């Protein structure tokens, strides 16, 4: 039993944390948020240079990490800084799917930061249901519509799920493919997504099934949970600082017992969230991984809401202003619940898997 990070991961964490603290300031991030692209190409290159993207892949895939704890370390730091660049969707999910498909040249580009991807799976009316795929693959072309596709506009290629007969499989679609239409829009918590229409769009079969997509989603669950954890750490830290510096009725508001005790509860729950992310990362390869992942996502959803709401409440008005760091962080935390199944979805999955 050992809960210390390896030296390599400790170094990765330190490097990434330092880089983001210096470069990814509130002001820089707010500029990115309001930019047309919704992401910074410079930041993306630098993340690649720092090895952050490579840490998401195993050595066989051309990276130098790829395990649950590698993802946890990277995404916790991205979450702490409120990074909106699509590391999760473009590099992790897209890249790992291509790695499973044996597209090592493209994976190399992903790790180098020179290739952007998008995973187009969810469809209108599908909510979080993995099986809800009406898009059809028929003789080398795709027909259908995909909903809220993260990073769709910036992607060089889209990885699209579609039914060929009954089976769901994944296909590669180039950004300039015929019949591909993307209606892009910004997201409340930063970054951009789009509604994707495929009208007899030529595609390349990837020889990947729904099972592969589920495996990639498991990685994404570790990542989004760790990201939310990092954001919760920021929220808690900002709140603690605020309570210690802000005075009202002549004293720091943190000396008011109610706020002090509620702060204590947040710290207790933050430890719970930290342990939940460790469980998700540590049991990612276990036979009952899905049970642990759903447990974690449910807990992160519950505690995330508490931390976001309590942090805003304890700040008061200042946290309601868009330019204040916590506003963005709180949005990241809450909106993470809308990805890869929400609190209730994973509660149900946990119940089903517990009964099995």
């Amino acid at each position, binding site marked *: 039993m050992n809960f210390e990070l390896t030296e390599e991961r400790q170094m990765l964490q330190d490097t990434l944390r330092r880089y983001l603290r210096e470069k990814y300031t509130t002001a820089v991030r707010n500029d990115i948020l309001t930019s047309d692209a919704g992401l910074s190409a410079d930041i993306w290159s630098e993340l690649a240079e720092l090895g952050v993207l490579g840490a998401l892949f195993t050595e066989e895939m051309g990276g130098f990490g790829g395990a649950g704890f590698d993802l946890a370390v990277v995404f916790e730091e991205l979450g702490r800084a409120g990074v909106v660049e699509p590391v999760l969707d473009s590099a992790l999910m897209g890249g790992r799917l291509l790695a499973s498909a044996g597209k090592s040249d493209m994976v190399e580009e992903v790790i180098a930061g020179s290739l952007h991807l998008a995973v187009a799976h*969810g469809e*209108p*009316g*599908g*909510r*979080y*249901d993995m099986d809800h795929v009406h898009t059809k693959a028929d003789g080398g072309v795709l027909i259908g519509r995909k*909903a*809220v596709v993260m990073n769709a506009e910036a992607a060089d290629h889209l990885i699209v799920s579609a039914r060929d007969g009954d089976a769901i499989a994944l296909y590669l679609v180039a950004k300039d493919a015929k019949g591909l239409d993307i*209606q*892009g*829009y*910004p*997201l*409340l*918590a930063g970054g951009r*997504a789009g*509604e994707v229409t495929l009208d007899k769009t030529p595609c390349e079969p990837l020889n990947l099934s729904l099972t592969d997509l589920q495996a990639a989603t498991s990685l994404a669950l570790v990542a989004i949970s760790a990201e939310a954890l990092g954001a919760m750490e920021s929220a808690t830290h900002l709140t603690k600082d605020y309570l210690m510096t802000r005075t*009202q*009725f002549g004293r720091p508001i943190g000396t*008011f017992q*109610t*706020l002090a005790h509620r702060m204590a509860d947040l710290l207790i729950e933050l430890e719970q969230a930290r342990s939940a992310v460790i469980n998700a990362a540590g049991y990612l390869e276990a036979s009952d991984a899905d049970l642990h992942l759903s447990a974690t996502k449910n807990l992160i959803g519950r505690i995330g*809401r508490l931390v976001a*709401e309590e942090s*805003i*409440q304890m700040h*008061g*008005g200042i*946290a*309601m*202003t*868009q*330019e*204040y760091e916590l*506003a*963005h962080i*709180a*949005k990241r935390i*809450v*909106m993470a*619940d*809308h*990805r890869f199944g*929400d*609190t*209730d979805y994973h*509660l*149900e999955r946990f119940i089903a898997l517990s009964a099995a």
Partner: protein
Amino acid sequence: MDMSFTDDELAFQNEVREFLRDELPSEMADKVAKGIELGKDDMERWHAILNARGWLAPNWPKSFGGAEWNAVQRHIFDTEAAAANAPRIVPFGLSMLGPVLQKFGSKEQQDHWLPRILDGSDWWCQGYSEPGAGSDLASLKTRAVRDGDHYVVNGQKTWTTLGQHANMIFCLVRTDPDAKQQEGISFLLIDMNTPGVEVRPIILLDGSDEVNEVWFTDVRVPVENLVGDENEGWTYAKYLLTHERANIAGVGFSQAGLAAVKRMARAENHNGRPLIENPHFAARVAQVDIDLRAMATSNLRIISKAAAGGAPGLEASMLKVKGSIIRQEINDLARRVAGPYAMPFASEALEGANDTIPDPLGAGPVAAQYFNNRKLSIFGGSNEIQRGIIAKVTMSGGRA
């Protein structure tokens, strides 16, 4: 005990329903239903419609042009209006300044300002909060120094809701810097077109721009714009704060919001069935539904007591806390229903202009509303302040 309306009350309810059916513009109701920000034109139009009917100032005496409704009538109107997705009345002139002028203003002030509130000549905003003061109103710093027939005002107000539309602001200003805390504060009416007044929007976390900072630099205000006596402003401010409480629980808004959640959850699919049939989601809906039913009855109880002459100070604090918790829970449910489609940032949709933002449930920007309504437990005396009031009142010998 009788929980049903009297015949008169039922007749009034019908009258309100007919009015709303005939007079409320449907495009306005649609915006309200979707949580899309109303423009200044919309709000002025709705005020004019109400004013034409004599219903714009429900709580004003008839002698000042008000409807002089009793508490139950006001409750009926508020509930029906919310159910019909009518816009909220902009409260600053009607619910806040109006009663203060009626009680403490001079005859000249009443004659000049009150009709202008009703006919829309003036749009008022509120200058109470200051940066760094939060719920501690008494520590305010904006100074007003007498200079001949004028006060010269310097300082800054914040959280000024809809200040961008206003031409007038009522302010708490410090006229005696040596007095401590609540003393030495005056209540001043300031024309926002006076040189030295600057309004800067504060963008809230949901992207809305409804609140503002207002800066005063050597702003000259005629002394006749002082309400009541110099250095007695705290009395008027407290009167204002405690005056308008009939709708503090927001029962109507919560009922309308919960109805929208149910409608959306019947349309939303969850693993092949309507989401509303999912036991876990249904449990969330049912619990807030049950809480809301109880609070609606609390609200009626308190209103009926107020109509009978009781003093609902303590109860108002209770209703504000519970009311905000329930409304925020309903906002949370709406966000959950929307699933992945809660994520798009409908900045333009806030003003109803964007077609590219997907909104399959016709729900409007539900996540933005969730964040925006965090304000309900912060502004207007935070829930912590309210709990402090409740504890103080009851622990010092009130009822349990």
